[in-house]
């Protein structure tokens, strides 16, 4: 199982903060991103998002393992 977290505008577009998908094990982050764009055609902003796997920033070509939590992180604006 892979858990996908979506925040801010991405969460609003999808209507969920958390998605789960067992079929994403072994895929790259880039593939997850493409799948989300297929499932939610108006989620274009995801191209600007950073990605974290298990709470650490990750590269787009990283492959996902069973149990990984993938978070799409739109441009941050804390402070």
């Amino acid at each position, binding site marked *: 199982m892979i858990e996908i977290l979506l925040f801010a505008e991405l969460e609003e577009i999808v209507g969920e903060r958390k998605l789960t998908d067992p079929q994403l094990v072994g895929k790259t982050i880039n593939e997850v991103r493409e799948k989300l764009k297929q499932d939610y055609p108006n989620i274009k902003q995801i191209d600007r998002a950073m990605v974290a796997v298990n709470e650490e920033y990750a590269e787009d070509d990283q492959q996902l393992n069973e149990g990984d939590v993938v978070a799409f992180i739109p441009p*941050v604006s804390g402070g």
Partner: protein
Amino acid sequence: MQRYRIIEDPIDIGEVVTKVEDRNAGAINTFIGTVREMTKGKKTVFLKYDAYVPMAEKKLEQIGDEIVEQYPEAKVAITHRIGRLDIQDIAVVIAVSTPHRADSFAASRYAIERIKEIVPIWKKEHWEDGEEWIGDQLEKKSYSKGHPEEEDLT
């Protein structure tokens, strides 16, 4: 004592300062971020902050570690508030103590700039006629690769 926190209640400035007190600190700099009413001629009614809480607390801690690497005698504490904030409410309190004052200023400044780069916290501005998620990074740079460069993360 938890020195890096994301909370939903009002931030107690004194509590954050207390966490960095030290017999060899001669200086404590605090940066307090507050909700400003007017931005570029537009009137904010209120804000909502959201965060990826566990990762945000980790990243605040990373910022503290980066500061201690550069200023080994520094002590750092950061609390960021999320949820609904009204005008003048405090969104973030950074406190840095160091033996000498110049370092406390430099480190505190570093902390707020880093927060705006790497900590997963988002602000939604609510105006009288609309609302929008703000992406501070985009004011300064765009992550064309979809993620910050290595130098921004480590």
